[in-house]
């Protein structure tokens, strides 16, 4: 098989893989749709507990939003570097993304721990159940994203930046941008919505 045809075959495979990953993201979006729908229906049922505006801190939520937004931005810059084949820049930008994502995750865990300490557990009422499940699912995705960044960066350090790695990074950055978009709605509906 000629080199050119092999390359064409690879390009088609990449195109298909990216499309497939996009379809996966759509299924993820639908899973979040259920969680948002459930939250929208149940958030008023804060039986035996506090309502959102007595529990949430807007400045904290804003900090989390900015962390995630910035990480989405640095992830995009890392992707540009990856397409240009600049390994060192890729490691730096995705490293920054990792740190920002980790900071976000720690803030979220801290918020969860504080809520549970106050007795606002997921078992308390429907509002808390839907809140913890929605944010927990997003947090779980962030955790998976962080693991993924770590694994990819590890392989890049070991094997260098070949086209397989660029494909992995492209999927990773789609995933990360997607999580940021989901967070916009969590910030808007859950946090700011509680103060309306």
């Amino acid at each position, binding site marked *: 098989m000629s080199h050119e045809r092999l390359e064409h075959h690879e390009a088609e495979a990449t195109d298909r893989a990216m499309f497939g990953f996009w379809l996966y993201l759509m299924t993820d979006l639908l899973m979040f749709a259920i969680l*948002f729908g459930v939250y929208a229906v149940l958030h008023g049922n804060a039986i*035996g507990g506090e309502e959102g505006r007595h529990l949430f801190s807007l400045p904290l939520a804003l900090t989390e939003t900015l962390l995630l937004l910035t990480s989405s931005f640095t992830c995009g810059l890392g992707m540009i570097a990856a397409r240009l084949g600049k390994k060192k820049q890729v490691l730096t930008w995705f490293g920054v993304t990792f740190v920002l994502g980790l900071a976000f995750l720690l803030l979220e865990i801290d918020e969860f721990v504080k809520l549970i300490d106050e007795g606002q557990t997921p078992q308390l009422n429907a509002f808390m159940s839907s809140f913890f499940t929605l944010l927990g699912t997003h947090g779980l995705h962030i955790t998976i994203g962080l693991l993924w960044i770590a694994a990819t960066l590890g392989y890049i350090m070991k094997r260098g930046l070949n086209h397989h790695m660029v494909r992995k990074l492209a999927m990773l950055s789609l995933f990360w941008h997607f999580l940021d978009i989901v967070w916009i709605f969590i910030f808007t509906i859950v946090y700011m919505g509680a103060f309306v």
Partner: protein
Amino acid sequence: MNKKQSHHGPQNEHGTVQSYVIGFVLSLICTFIPYYLVVEKIVTGNTLLATIVVFGFVQMLIQIVFFLHLGRGPKPNWNLFFFGSTFTIVLAVVGGSIFIIHNLNYHMTPSDKIKKLLNDENIQQIGGADTGVCGQTYESHIVTIKDGIVEPLQTEAKRCDTLTFVNEDEVEREITFGEHEDHEAYAGEIELPVTRGRNKTITLSEEGLYRFHDHLDPDISGYFTVQSK
């Protein structure tokens, strides 16, 4: 972006540093404006909710265009097609659930909500039977809370009088009925947020002796009795 390169490579579908910077700045703007609106309470209620949700959607579109570069690939653009159809389903799932369950709650609700509804809509009779809603109101009674003191501590009223809660303090109060933690509804009312300058009035349609208190500060409490006309 030029379309000629798009033949097999994905080269042209990706952003430049410039597009990412534009996207980032626009996203920041779309984060801070609704945040400011919420914190400063420039508009309130459903208008505010609608405004921040619209800003959320705008920010989503910005990120889709500048970060995800959707719609820039070769034709036919299946990514865009699937995003569009999925998003329609998302709206159907969320909107449909709200529509159906809200309608259900409207028709089949706990008795408290039904009472509140009857009061709010001033429905006095259903199928010839009295609902207990007052057609007209008579005397007005006022309970004032100032410096954490309830005045008067006990109010004597007749059925279909009104009772107004006035809060003179800076802090927000939530008037609820019954003992703290074990709240009861009175005439369908579960919770009355009262702030300085915003009073709340209820119609005394249920007879008996009732206790009310501030949910946020349970020590602040009082009584009112309602006798038949």
